[in-house]
Protein backbone atom coordinates (compact mmCIF):
# COMPACT_ATOMS: atom_id res chain seq x y z
CA UNK A 1 0.00 0.00 0.00
CA UNK A 2 2.72 2.42 1.00
CA UNK A 3 4.64 1.49 -2.10
CA UNK A 4 1.62 2.08 -4.31
CA UNK A 5 0.78 5.38 -2.61
CA UNK A 6 4.36 6.55 -2.91
CA UNK A 7 4.47 5.78 -6.63
CA UNK A 8 1.07 7.38 -7.12
CA UNK A 9 2.09 10.59 -5.40
CA UNK A 10 5.32 10.68 -7.36
CA UNK A 11 3.33 10.12 -10.52
CA UNK A 12 0.92 12.92 -9.77
CA UNK A 13 3.77 15.36 -9.15
CA UNK A 14 5.70 14.35 -12.27
CA UNK A 15 2.40 14.47 -14.14
CA UNK A 16 1.64 17.97 -12.88
CA UNK A 17 5.02 19.12 -14.19
CA UNK A 18 4.27 17.43 -17.54
CA UNK A 19 0.90 19.16 -17.64
CA UNK A 20 2.43 22.54 -16.94
CA UNK A 21 5.23 22.22 -19.47
CA UNK A 22 2.85 20.76 -22.03
CA UNK A 23 0.66 23.83 -21.56
CA UNK A 24 3.48 25.92 -23.00
CA UNK A 25 3.90 23.52 -25.89
CA UNK A 26 0.19 23.49 -26.69
CA UNK A 27 -0.05 27.25 -26.40
CA UNK A 28 2.63 27.91 -28.99
CA UNK A 29 1.05 25.29 -31.22
CA UNK A 30 -2.41 26.78 -30.87
CA UNK A 31 -1.29 30.34 -31.45
CA UNK A 32 1.13 29.81 -34.30
CA UNK A 33 0.79 26.15 -35.39
CA UNK A 34 4.48 25.69 -34.61
CA UNK A 35 5.70 22.63 -32.72
CA UNK A 36 8.31 24.03 -30.37
CA UNK A 37 11.07 21.47 -30.04
CA UNK A 38 13.07 23.80 -27.82
CA UNK A 39 10.55 23.45 -24.99
CA UNK A 40 12.80 21.09 -23.01
CA UNK A 41 15.78 23.38 -23.45
CA UNK A 42 13.73 26.31 -22.15
CA UNK A 43 13.00 24.19 -19.10
CA UNK A 44 16.67 23.34 -18.69
CA UNK A 45 17.98 26.87 -19.12
CA UNK A 46 15.32 28.20 -16.73
CA UNK A 47 16.55 25.84 -14.05
CA UNK A 48 20.17 26.92 -14.57
CA UNK A 49 19.20 30.60 -14.48
CA UNK A 50 17.53 30.05 -11.14
CA UNK A 51 20.51 28.11 -9.80
CA UNK A 52 22.88 30.87 -10.81
CA UNK A 53 20.70 33.55 -9.21
CA UNK A 54 20.42 31.59 -5.98
CA UNK A 55 24.18 31.11 -5.78
CA UNK A 56 25.33 34.55 -6.95
CA UNK A 57 22.71 36.87 -5.55
CA UNK A 58 22.06 34.92 -2.35
CA UNK A 59 18.53 36.26 -2.44
CA UNK A 60 16.75 33.13 -1.43
CA UNK A 61 14.84 30.79 -3.65
CA UNK A 62 11.60 32.76 -3.96
CA UNK A 63 13.19 35.95 -5.26
CA UNK A 64 15.50 33.95 -7.52
CA UNK A 65 12.53 32.02 -8.89
CA UNK A 66 10.54 35.17 -9.66
CA UNK A 67 13.59 36.81 -11.25
CA UNK A 68 14.07 33.67 -13.35
CA UNK A 69 10.56 34.02 -14.68
CA UNK A 70 11.27 37.64 -15.64
CA UNK A 71 14.53 36.66 -17.36
CA UNK A 72 12.80 33.85 -19.22
CA UNK A 73 10.07 36.22 -20.39
CA UNK A 74 12.68 38.60 -21.76
CA UNK A 75 14.41 35.71 -23.49
CA UNK A 76 11.11 34.55 -25.02
CA UNK A 77 10.40 38.03 -26.38
CA UNK A 78 13.92 38.16 -27.84
CA UNK A 79 13.47 34.74 -29.46
CA UNK A 80 10.25 35.92 -31.08
CA UNK A 81 11.64 39.32 -32.07
CA UNK A 82 15.04 38.25 -33.37
CA UNK A 83 14.41 34.80 -34.77
CA UNK A 84 10.77 33.95 -35.34
CA UNK A 85 9.35 37.22 -36.58
CA UNK A 86 11.51 37.01 -39.67
CA UNK A 87 9.94 33.63 -40.31
CA UNK A 88 6.30 34.64 -39.96
CA UNK A 89 5.53 33.68 -43.53
CA UNK A 90 7.95 30.79 -43.75
CA UNK A 91 6.58 27.24 -43.99
CA UNK A 92 5.75 25.80 -40.58
CA UNK A 93 8.32 23.03 -41.07
CA UNK A 94 11.09 25.59 -41.41
CA UNK A 95 10.07 27.21 -38.15
CA UNK A 96 10.03 23.81 -36.47
CA UNK A 97 13.58 23.21 -37.71
CA UNK A 98 14.57 26.56 -36.26
CA UNK A 99 13.21 25.56 -32.85
CA UNK A 100 15.31 22.38 -33.00
CA UNK A 101 18.37 24.49 -33.77
CA UNK A 102 17.51 26.85 -30.96
CA UNK A 103 17.32 23.90 -28.58
CA UNK A 104 20.73 22.63 -29.65
CA UNK A 105 22.22 26.09 -29.12
CA UNK A 106 20.74 26.44 -25.66
CA UNK A 107 22.05 23.00 -24.69
CA UNK A 108 25.52 23.94 -25.92
CA UNK A 109 25.43 27.10 -23.84
CA UNK A 110 24.61 25.08 -20.75
CA UNK A 111 27.38 22.59 -21.49
CA UNK A 112 29.87 25.42 -21.97
CA UNK A 113 28.92 27.37 -18.88
CA UNK A 114 27.98 24.71 -16.36
CA UNK A 115 29.41 21.53 -17.83
CA UNK A 116 27.85 18.06 -18.04
CA UNK A 117 27.91 17.37 -14.31
CA UNK A 118 24.94 17.20 -11.96
CA UNK A 119 24.64 20.31 -9.81
CA UNK A 120 22.36 20.54 -6.81
CA UNK A 121 20.57 23.58 -5.49
CA UNK A 122 21.82 24.67 -2.08
CA UNK A 123 19.22 23.12 0.18
CA UNK A 124 16.51 25.62 0.95
CA UNK A 125 13.77 23.47 2.26
CA UNK A 126 13.35 21.10 5.14
CA UNK A 127 14.21 17.45 4.58
CA UNK A 128 11.63 16.29 7.07
CA UNK A 129 8.87 14.66 5.05
CA UNK A 130 5.32 15.78 5.44
CA UNK A 131 2.91 13.22 6.83
CA UNK A 132 -0.28 12.94 4.78
CA UNK A 133 -1.60 10.24 7.11
CA UNK A 134 -1.33 7.24 4.85
CA UNK A 135 1.98 8.15 3.29
CA UNK A 136 4.83 10.54 3.96
CA UNK A 137 5.82 12.91 1.19
CA UNK A 138 8.85 15.11 1.01
CA UNK A 139 7.92 18.76 1.36
CA UNK A 140 9.44 19.81 -1.94
CA UNK A 141 7.05 17.50 -3.78
CA UNK A 142 4.11 19.22 -2.16
CA UNK A 143 5.42 22.69 -2.99
CA UNK A 144 6.18 21.59 -6.53
CA UNK A 145 2.70 20.26 -6.99
CA UNK A 146 1.09 23.41 -5.58
CA UNK A 147 3.20 25.64 -7.83
CA UNK A 148 2.13 23.63 -10.89
CA UNK A 149 -1.52 23.84 -9.94
CA UNK A 150 -1.24 27.58 -9.22
CA UNK A 151 0.39 28.30 -12.57
CA UNK A 152 -2.13 26.30 -14.53
CA UNK A 153 -5.02 27.85 -12.67
CA UNK A 154 -3.61 31.31 -13.22
CA UNK A 155 -3.13 30.86 -16.94
CA UNK A 156 -6.46 29.10 -17.28
CA UNK A 157 -8.23 32.09 -15.75
CA UNK A 158 -6.08 34.48 -17.75
CA UNK A 159 -7.12 32.93 -21.07
CA UNK A 160 -10.73 32.75 -19.98
CA UNK A 161 -11.30 36.17 -18.51
CA UNK A 162 -8.89 38.78 -19.85
CA UNK A 163 -9.13 40.69 -23.09
CA UNK A 164 -5.66 39.46 -23.97
CA UNK A 165 -6.79 35.92 -23.31
CA UNK A 166 -9.74 36.44 -25.64
CA UNK A 167 -7.42 37.75 -28.33
CA UNK A 168 -5.19 34.69 -27.91
CA UNK A 169 -8.12 32.30 -28.12
CA UNK A 170 -9.41 34.08 -31.20
CA UNK A 171 -5.99 33.87 -32.84
CA UNK A 172 -5.82 30.16 -32.02
CA UNK A 173 -9.22 29.72 -33.65
CA UNK A 174 -8.43 31.62 -36.85
CA UNK A 175 -5.33 33.66 -37.54
CA UNK A 176 -6.76 35.23 -40.67
CA UNK A 177 -9.94 36.33 -38.96
CA UNK A 178 -8.00 37.62 -35.95
CA UNK A 179 -5.82 39.73 -38.20
CA UNK A 180 -8.88 41.12 -39.95
CA UNK A 181 -10.18 42.56 -36.70
CA UNK A 182 -6.83 44.19 -35.98
CA UNK A 183 -4.92 41.66 -33.91
CA UNK A 184 -1.16 41.98 -34.45
CA UNK A 185 -0.28 38.30 -34.73
CA UNK A 186 3.36 38.73 -33.80
CA UNK A 187 2.38 40.09 -30.38
CA UNK A 188 0.19 37.07 -29.76
CA UNK A 189 3.02 34.74 -30.80
CA UNK A 190 5.42 36.58 -28.50
CA UNK A 191 3.04 36.25 -25.60
CA UNK A 192 2.58 32.53 -26.28
CA UNK A 193 6.37 32.15 -26.14
CA UNK A 194 6.53 34.12 -22.91
CA UNK A 195 3.96 31.87 -21.25
CA UNK A 196 5.73 28.78 -22.61
CA UNK A 197 9.06 30.01 -21.26
CA UNK A 198 7.55 30.78 -17.86
CA UNK A 199 5.87 27.41 -17.38
CA UNK A 200 8.94 25.58 -18.67
CA UNK A 201 11.24 27.44 -16.32
CA UNK A 202 8.92 26.71 -13.40
CA UNK A 203 8.96 23.03 -14.34
CA UNK A 204 12.74 23.14 -14.66
CA UNK A 205 13.25 24.71 -11.25
CA UNK A 206 10.95 22.18 -9.55
CA UNK A 207 12.57 19.21 -11.28
CA UNK A 208 16.03 20.63 -10.66
CA UNK A 209 15.30 21.20 -7.01
CA UNK A 210 14.22 17.58 -6.62
CA UNK A 211 16.76 15.71 -8.70
CA UNK A 212 19.56 18.19 -9.41
CA UNK A 213 20.48 19.95 -12.61
CA UNK A 214 22.08 18.34 -15.64
CA UNK A 215 21.83 19.23 -19.32
CA UNK A 216 19.67 16.10 -19.55
CA UNK A 217 16.81 18.14 -18.14
CA UNK A 218 16.22 19.14 -21.74
CA UNK A 219 14.89 15.62 -22.34
CA UNK A 220 11.67 16.84 -20.76
CA UNK A 221 10.84 18.44 -24.08
CA UNK A 222 10.48 14.97 -25.56
CA UNK A 223 9.02 13.45 -22.43
CA UNK A 224 6.02 15.79 -22.37
CA UNK A 225 5.27 14.90 -25.96
CA UNK A 226 3.11 11.83 -25.11
CA UNK A 227 1.07 14.03 -22.79
CA UNK A 228 0.62 16.59 -25.53
CA UNK A 229 -0.52 13.96 -28.03
CA UNK A 230 -2.75 12.14 -25.54
CA UNK A 231 -4.32 15.47 -24.64
CA UNK A 232 -5.03 16.18 -28.26
CA UNK A 233 -2.29 18.63 -29.27
CA UNK A 234 -4.55 21.66 -29.20
CA UNK A 235 -6.59 21.19 -26.05
CA UNK A 236 -5.36 22.80 -22.86
CA UNK A 237 -7.79 20.93 -20.60
CA UNK A 238 -7.02 17.66 -22.38
CA UNK A 239 -3.30 18.21 -21.96
CA UNK A 240 -3.66 18.93 -18.26
CA UNK A 241 -5.51 15.67 -17.68
CA UNK A 242 -3.18 13.74 -19.99
CA UNK A 243 -0.09 15.11 -18.25
CA UNK A 244 -1.18 13.73 -14.88
CA UNK A 245 -2.29 10.42 -16.44
CA UNK A 246 1.04 9.98 -18.17
CA UNK A 247 2.96 10.85 -15.02
CA UNK A 248 1.03 8.31 -12.97
CA UNK A 249 1.37 5.60 -15.62
CA UNK A 250 5.08 6.25 -15.86
CA UNK A 251 5.70 6.00 -12.12
CA UNK A 252 3.35 3.11 -11.36
CA UNK A 253 4.35 1.18 -14.44
CA UNK A 254 8.04 1.85 -13.92
CA UNK A 255 7.87 0.88 -10.25
CA UNK A 256 6.04 -2.42 -10.66
CA UNK A 257 7.86 -3.41 -13.84
CA UNK A 258 11.14 -2.97 -12.01
CA UNK A 259 9.96 -5.35 -9.31
CA UNK A 260 8.76 -7.95 -11.77
CA UNK A 261 11.52 -7.82 -14.32
CA UNK A 262 14.42 -6.55 -12.28
CA UNK A 263 15.03 -3.94 -14.95
CA UNK A 264 15.00 -0.33 -13.90
CA UNK A 265 14.34 2.60 -16.22
CA UNK A 266 11.29 1.11 -17.91
CA UNK A 267 9.05 3.88 -16.60
CA UNK A 268 9.91 6.58 -19.14
CA UNK A 269 9.24 4.13 -21.97
CA UNK A 270 5.62 3.57 -21.02
CA UNK A 271 4.35 6.99 -22.17
CA UNK A 272 5.73 6.30 -25.61
CA UNK A 273 3.80 3.03 -25.84
CA UNK A 274 0.77 5.07 -24.92
CA UNK A 275 1.78 7.59 -27.58
CA UNK A 276 1.88 4.96 -30.27
CA UNK A 277 -1.43 3.42 -29.22
CA UNK A 278 -3.10 6.83 -29.09
CA UNK A 279 -1.88 7.63 -32.57
CA UNK A 280 -3.27 4.31 -33.79
CA UNK A 281 -6.70 4.40 -32.28
CA UNK A 282 -7.47 8.01 -31.41
CA UNK A 283 -5.14 10.40 -33.23
CA UNK A 284 -6.96 13.49 -31.99
CA UNK A 285 -6.28 12.46 -28.40
CA UNK A 286 -8.62 12.85 -25.47
CA UNK A 287 -9.95 16.27 -26.33
CA UNK A 288 -8.21 17.54 -29.44
CA UNK A 289 -10.07 18.88 -32.42
CA UNK A 290 -10.69 16.32 -35.15
CA UNK A 291 -9.12 17.29 -38.41
CA UNK A 292 -11.69 17.10 -41.13
CA UNK A 293 -10.37 17.14 -44.66
CA UNK A 294 -12.56 18.93 -47.11
CA UNK A 295 -12.43 17.07 -50.37
Amino acid sequence: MDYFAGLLINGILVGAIYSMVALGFVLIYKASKVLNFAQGELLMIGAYFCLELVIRLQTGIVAAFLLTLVLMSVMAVLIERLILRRMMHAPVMSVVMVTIGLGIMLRSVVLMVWGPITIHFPSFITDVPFDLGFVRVSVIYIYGFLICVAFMLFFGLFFRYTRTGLVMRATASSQVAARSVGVPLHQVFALAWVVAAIVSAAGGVITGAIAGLTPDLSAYGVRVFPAVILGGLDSIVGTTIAGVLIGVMEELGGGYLRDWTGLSGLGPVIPFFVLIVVLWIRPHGLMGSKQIERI
Partner: protein
Amino acid sequence: MSFGGIQALDGVSFSVSPGTIHGIIGPNGAGKTTLINCISGQFTPSGSIRYGDHELTRLRAHERIGLGIARTFQHINIYGELSVLDNVKIGGHHRLQSRWLHQCLYWGPFGCSREETRLHNEAMVLLETLDMEDVAELPAGELSYGQQKRLEIGRALLGQPSLLLLDEPMAGMSRQEKNNLSEWIRQISRELSVTILMIEHDMSVIQALTEQVVVLDFGRKIAEGTPREVVQDQRVRIAYLGEE
Protein backbone atom coordinates in the same frame (compact mmCIF):
# COMPACT_ATOMS: atom_id res chain seq x y z
CA MET B 1 -0.89 39.97 -58.29
CA SER B 2 0.33 36.54 -59.25
CA PHE B 3 0.88 33.16 -57.61
CA GLY B 4 3.69 31.22 -59.20
CA GLY B 5 2.95 31.32 -62.89
CA ILE B 6 -0.68 32.30 -62.52
CA GLN B 7 -1.57 35.91 -63.01
CA ALA B 8 -4.48 36.18 -60.55
CA LEU B 9 -5.09 39.86 -61.04
CA ASP B 10 -3.82 41.81 -64.02
CA GLY B 11 -4.16 45.55 -64.30
CA VAL B 12 -7.49 45.70 -62.52
CA SER B 13 -8.38 49.29 -61.81
CA PHE B 14 -11.59 50.80 -60.51
CA SER B 15 -12.82 53.14 -57.85
CA VAL B 16 -15.62 52.96 -55.30
CA SER B 17 -17.47 56.08 -54.22
CA PRO B 18 -18.09 56.51 -50.51
CA GLY B 19 -21.48 55.42 -49.23
CA THR B 20 -22.35 53.21 -52.19
CA ILE B 21 -22.87 49.48 -52.51
CA HIS B 22 -20.47 48.15 -55.10
CA GLY B 23 -20.62 44.66 -56.56
CA ILE B 24 -17.87 42.43 -57.90
CA ILE B 25 -18.97 39.60 -60.15
CA GLY B 26 -17.22 37.11 -62.36
CA PRO B 27 -16.88 33.38 -62.96
CA ASN B 28 -15.07 31.13 -60.51
CA GLY B 29 -11.34 31.78 -60.48
CA ALA B 30 -11.76 35.25 -61.90
CA GLY B 31 -9.81 36.80 -59.02
CA LYS B 32 -12.67 38.26 -57.01
CA THR B 33 -11.54 36.95 -53.63
CA THR B 34 -7.93 37.75 -54.46
CA LEU B 35 -9.01 41.31 -55.05
CA ILE B 36 -10.64 41.51 -51.63
CA ASN B 37 -7.60 39.86 -50.06
CA CYS B 38 -5.44 42.59 -51.58
CA ILE B 39 -7.64 45.33 -50.17
CA SER B 40 -7.79 43.76 -46.70
CA GLY B 41 -4.07 43.00 -46.70
CA GLN B 42 -3.83 39.22 -46.93
CA PHE B 43 -1.79 39.73 -50.10
CA THR B 44 0.35 42.63 -51.18
CA PRO B 45 -0.06 43.33 -54.89
CA SER B 46 2.25 45.33 -57.07
CA GLY B 47 0.48 48.52 -57.90
CA SER B 48 -1.51 50.82 -55.75
CA ILE B 49 -4.66 50.64 -53.63
CA ARG B 50 -5.73 53.95 -52.23
CA TYR B 51 -8.29 54.47 -49.50
CA GLY B 52 -9.00 58.15 -49.06
CA ASP B 53 -5.54 59.63 -48.66
CA HIS B 54 -3.94 56.40 -47.53
CA GLU B 55 -1.85 54.05 -49.63
CA LEU B 56 -3.08 50.67 -48.39
CA THR B 57 -0.26 48.54 -49.74
CA ARG B 58 2.08 50.12 -47.19
CA LEU B 59 -0.09 49.02 -44.27
CA ARG B 60 -0.05 45.59 -42.74
CA ALA B 61 -3.23 43.53 -42.61
CA HIS B 62 -3.95 44.13 -38.93
CA GLU B 63 -3.47 47.88 -39.36
CA ARG B 64 -6.13 48.29 -42.04
CA ILE B 65 -9.06 47.93 -39.68
CA GLY B 66 -7.71 51.12 -38.08
CA LEU B 67 -8.68 52.95 -41.27
CA GLY B 68 -12.12 51.41 -41.08
CA ILE B 69 -11.72 48.49 -43.47
CA ALA B 70 -13.48 45.37 -42.23
CA ARG B 71 -14.27 42.17 -44.07
CA THR B 72 -16.03 38.84 -44.05
CA PHE B 73 -14.82 35.64 -45.66
CA GLN B 74 -16.08 33.41 -48.44
CA HIS B 75 -15.75 30.31 -46.30
CA ILE B 76 -17.14 31.01 -42.87
CA ASN B 77 -14.33 32.19 -40.67
CA ILE B 78 -15.76 32.72 -37.22
CA TYR B 79 -14.09 31.61 -34.00
CA GLY B 80 -16.01 28.36 -33.59
CA GLU B 81 -14.85 27.60 -30.06
CA LEU B 82 -15.58 31.09 -28.75
CA SER B 83 -19.01 32.21 -27.64
CA VAL B 84 -21.21 34.14 -30.05
CA LEU B 85 -20.84 37.21 -27.85
CA ASP B 86 -17.03 36.97 -27.78
CA ASN B 87 -17.02 36.60 -31.55
CA VAL B 88 -18.82 39.90 -31.91
CA LYS B 89 -16.92 41.66 -29.15
CA ILE B 90 -13.56 40.94 -30.68
CA GLY B 91 -14.70 42.77 -33.79
CA GLY B 92 -14.36 45.98 -31.81
CA HIS B 93 -10.87 45.10 -30.64
CA HIS B 94 -9.02 47.77 -32.56
CA ARG B 95 -11.18 50.48 -30.98
CA LEU B 96 -9.90 49.75 -27.49
CA GLN B 97 -7.72 52.55 -26.19
CA SER B 98 -6.00 50.48 -23.52
CA ARG B 99 -2.57 49.06 -24.28
CA TRP B 100 -2.10 45.34 -24.31
CA LEU B 101 -0.42 45.20 -20.92
CA HIS B 102 -3.49 46.86 -19.48
CA GLN B 103 -5.62 44.37 -21.33
CA CYS B 104 -3.82 41.57 -19.54
CA LEU B 105 -4.99 43.09 -16.29
CA TYR B 106 -8.65 43.21 -17.19
CA TRP B 107 -10.24 40.56 -15.02
CA GLY B 108 -14.01 40.54 -15.37
CA PRO B 109 -15.39 43.58 -13.60
CA PHE B 110 -12.03 45.17 -12.77
CA GLY B 111 -9.38 46.98 -14.75
CA CYS B 112 -10.19 48.82 -17.95
CA SER B 113 -13.82 47.93 -17.56
CA ARG B 114 -15.50 51.03 -18.95
CA GLU B 115 -14.31 50.31 -22.47
CA GLU B 116 -15.12 46.63 -22.12
CA THR B 117 -18.58 47.37 -20.78
CA ARG B 118 -19.28 49.72 -23.67
CA LEU B 119 -18.13 47.12 -26.15
CA HIS B 120 -20.20 44.47 -24.39
CA ASN B 121 -23.33 46.63 -24.57
CA GLU B 122 -22.78 47.44 -28.22
CA ALA B 123 -22.30 43.73 -28.94
CA MET B 124 -25.55 42.87 -27.18
CA VAL B 125 -27.48 45.51 -29.14
CA LEU B 126 -26.02 44.14 -32.34
CA LEU B 127 -26.93 40.58 -31.38
CA GLU B 128 -30.49 41.74 -30.79
CA THR B 129 -30.75 43.16 -34.29
CA LEU B 130 -29.37 39.83 -35.50
CA ASP B 131 -31.98 38.03 -33.39
CA MET B 132 -29.21 36.13 -31.66
CA GLU B 133 -29.34 37.45 -28.11
CA ASP B 134 -30.63 34.06 -26.90
CA VAL B 135 -27.59 32.23 -28.21
CA ALA B 136 -25.01 34.80 -27.10
CA GLU B 137 -23.26 32.38 -24.75
CA LEU B 138 -23.25 29.37 -27.08
CA PRO B 139 -20.09 28.42 -28.95
CA ALA B 140 -20.40 30.08 -32.33
CA GLY B 141 -19.59 26.81 -34.07
CA GLU B 142 -22.99 25.45 -32.99
CA LEU B 143 -24.96 28.08 -34.89
CA SER B 144 -26.69 27.35 -38.16
CA TYR B 145 -24.95 28.22 -41.39
CA GLY B 146 -27.08 31.30 -41.98
CA GLN B 147 -26.54 32.55 -38.46
CA GLN B 148 -22.77 32.08 -38.76
CA LYS B 149 -22.77 34.08 -41.99
CA ARG B 150 -24.64 36.92 -40.29
CA LEU B 151 -22.47 36.66 -37.18
CA GLU B 152 -19.43 37.29 -39.35
CA ILE B 153 -20.98 40.47 -40.69
CA GLY B 154 -21.87 41.43 -37.12
CA ARG B 155 -18.27 40.97 -36.03
CA ALA B 156 -17.09 43.20 -38.85
CA LEU B 157 -19.70 45.83 -37.96
CA LEU B 158 -18.57 46.15 -34.35
CA GLY B 159 -15.30 47.48 -35.74
CA GLN B 160 -17.36 50.46 -36.95
CA PRO B 161 -16.05 50.13 -40.48
CA SER B 162 -16.34 52.78 -43.15
CA LEU B 163 -15.66 50.18 -45.83
CA LEU B 164 -17.09 46.70 -45.50
CA LEU B 165 -15.81 43.94 -47.78
CA LEU B 166 -18.28 41.07 -48.11
CA ASP B 167 -17.11 37.90 -49.85
CA GLU B 168 -20.22 36.06 -51.04
CA PRO B 169 -22.33 36.85 -47.98
CA MET B 170 -25.35 35.03 -49.41
CA ALA B 171 -23.81 31.88 -50.81
CA GLY B 172 -25.92 28.86 -49.97
CA MET B 173 -28.90 30.79 -48.64
CA SER B 174 -32.56 30.42 -49.52
CA ARG B 175 -34.39 33.12 -51.44
CA GLN B 176 -36.09 34.29 -48.26
CA GLU B 177 -32.79 34.49 -46.35
CA LYS B 178 -31.20 36.37 -49.24
CA ASN B 179 -34.01 38.91 -49.23
CA ASN B 180 -33.67 39.49 -45.50
CA LEU B 181 -29.92 39.80 -45.67
CA SER B 182 -30.12 42.16 -48.65
CA GLU B 183 -32.49 44.35 -46.69
CA TRP B 184 -30.08 44.37 -43.74
CA ILE B 185 -27.09 45.20 -45.93
CA ARG B 186 -29.00 48.08 -47.48
CA GLN B 187 -29.86 49.28 -44.00
CA ILE B 188 -26.23 49.07 -42.86
CA SER B 189 -25.11 51.03 -45.86
CA ARG B 190 -27.70 53.75 -45.40
CA GLU B 191 -27.91 54.12 -41.64
CA LEU B 192 -24.27 53.63 -40.74
CA SER B 193 -23.08 55.22 -43.99
CA VAL B 194 -20.79 52.27 -44.66
CA THR B 195 -19.39 51.78 -48.13
CA ILE B 196 -19.89 48.19 -49.18
CA LEU B 197 -17.90 46.20 -51.70
CA MET B 198 -19.39 42.77 -52.15
CA ILE B 199 -18.74 39.67 -54.20
CA GLU B 200 -21.95 37.96 -55.22
CA HIS B 201 -22.96 35.36 -57.77
CA ASP B 202 -26.70 35.85 -57.60
CA MET B 203 -27.53 38.39 -60.30
CA SER B 204 -30.92 39.21 -58.83
CA VAL B 205 -29.22 40.20 -55.56
CA ILE B 206 -26.68 42.25 -57.51
CA GLN B 207 -29.42 44.01 -59.45
CA ALA B 208 -31.49 44.73 -56.37
CA LEU B 209 -28.68 45.87 -54.14
CA THR B 210 -25.72 47.37 -55.94
CA GLU B 211 -25.26 50.70 -57.64
CA GLN B 212 -22.05 49.87 -59.49
CA VAL B 213 -20.62 46.54 -60.60
CA VAL B 214 -17.14 45.48 -61.66
CA VAL B 215 -16.88 42.31 -63.74
CA LEU B 216 -13.71 40.24 -63.56
CA ASP B 217 -12.67 37.39 -65.81
CA PHE B 218 -9.29 35.62 -65.70
CA GLY B 219 -7.90 38.38 -63.48
CA ARG B 220 -8.87 41.22 -65.81
CA LYS B 221 -11.62 43.75 -65.52
CA ILE B 222 -13.87 43.17 -68.51
CA ALA B 223 -16.69 45.56 -67.69
CA GLU B 224 -17.88 48.13 -65.21
CA GLY B 225 -21.09 50.06 -64.77
CA THR B 226 -24.54 49.86 -63.30
CA PRO B 227 -25.98 46.36 -62.98
CA ARG B 228 -28.25 47.07 -65.94
CA GLU B 229 -25.41 48.19 -68.16
CA VAL B 230 -23.24 45.29 -67.15
CA VAL B 231 -25.70 42.50 -67.92
CA GLN B 232 -26.17 43.94 -71.38
CA ASP B 233 -22.45 44.09 -72.07
CA GLN B 234 -21.49 41.62 -74.77
CA ARG B 235 -18.24 40.50 -73.17
CA VAL B 236 -19.97 39.88 -69.84
CA ARG B 237 -22.63 37.79 -71.50
CA ILE B 238 -19.98 35.66 -73.14
CA ALA B 239 -17.70 35.28 -70.14
CA TYR B 240 -20.12 35.07 -67.31
CA LEU B 241 -23.63 34.36 -68.43
CA GLY B 242 -22.44 31.75 -70.90
CA GLU B 243 -23.90 33.16 -74.11
CA GLU B 244 -22.35 32.90 -77.49
